[in-house]
């Protein structure tokens, strides 16, 4: 999917994560700020990268502000941010991939 504009999903509440995605310059760049960065920073990054890969995103700048979110929440917020940023207006292919 093509990132056409900046978009954000999620909140800064406890157990949530706020993910901002912007058009990139041909690569994926992920910046993470987390209350559990030392323990889970690598895992958070891996979930974000896997989600973007699954959705066919190859160029984006991603900012992650984590407040102790579970992996499923990170994935949910990342997917939402991508769909918003790609201006996707069809039915969501739940469990599948829109490209």
């Amino acid at each position: 999917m093509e990132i056409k504009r900046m978009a954000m999903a999620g909140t800064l509440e406890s157990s949530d994560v706020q993910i901002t995605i912007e058009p990139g310059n041909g690569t994926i760049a992920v910046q993470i700020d987390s209350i559990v960065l030392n323990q889970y920073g690598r895992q958070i990054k891996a979930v974000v990268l896997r989600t973007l890969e699954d959705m066919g995103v190859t160029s984006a700048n991603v900012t992650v502000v984590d407040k102790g979110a579970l992996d499923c929440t990170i994935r949910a917020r990342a997917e939402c941010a991508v769909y918003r940023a790609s201006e996707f207006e069809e039915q969501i292919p739940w469990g599948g991939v829109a490209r």
Partner: protein
Amino acid sequence: MKGKNRLRRTLMFVSAQTPGLVKEAYIYGADSIILDLEDAVAENQKDAARFSLYHALKTVDFMGAERIVRINGMDTPHWKEDIRAAVAGGADVIRIPKCDSAADVVAVEQYIKAVELEFNRPDAGTLIMAAMESPKAVLRAEEICTASERLVGIALSGGDFRKSMQTKYYPSGNEILAARGLLLLAARAAGVQCYDTIFSDLNDMEGFRVETVTGKEMGFDGKSVVSPRQIQVVHEVFAPSEKEMIEAERTVRAIRENAERGIGIFTLDGKMLDVAFLPGAERVLELAKASGLYKGDLV
């Protein structure tokens, strides 16, 4: 239909858009958790809530609690995508807010069937619950209750109903007494469950208990709750007494034993019994089991 008549003493509302609430919702022991896409979610966050809902349904272990999804009203552009996310995620029940007619239930049922096929879940048997918020809906309760085999029960949404009746909350409950009665009559006539409305004043626990007792006495199957603090009260009120439990156990045992010997009607402790007493006695034992009082294996 799976789980259609399961115990639903407590149905706890949780915003699907708030991960901190969703991931811990099962801890408090509600029989059913209502993951809300409607009033608890701001208009510009409806899409985000659906993603949270889908992944929570796929990932979070709700430890046996039923997963009900309250979709947005059928007068909004959201309800179909809400159903797609909920069914794809594996929700147990779709709750229709502002249900006004049998046609609303049928439309939701047909869309659920289509979505179950779309996501290769033809046997999912996603159930339906209808909440009524208007005088028109209450007067049509009977047709709503019989609109679909998937319908498990109906609920009164007191807040909106009071507004449409040009009244407000009173501790006596007089302002919704007629609606409660009509919904209960329609539900019982159709053989579906009926759930009482929420009590929103979290600081008035005594008022909440009084209202819960009234609901139990009227015949409701359970009550919608908005805080974990309210769950234990409902479970206490709906728990049978030890005497009721023992009587129910003896009734169930006697009816089943006599049925095996081909006897349909008999007396127990001077009371005439037949198979018509079985469902009620079994329900008492189910309530007792859910309350931790009954350890037997009759239910």
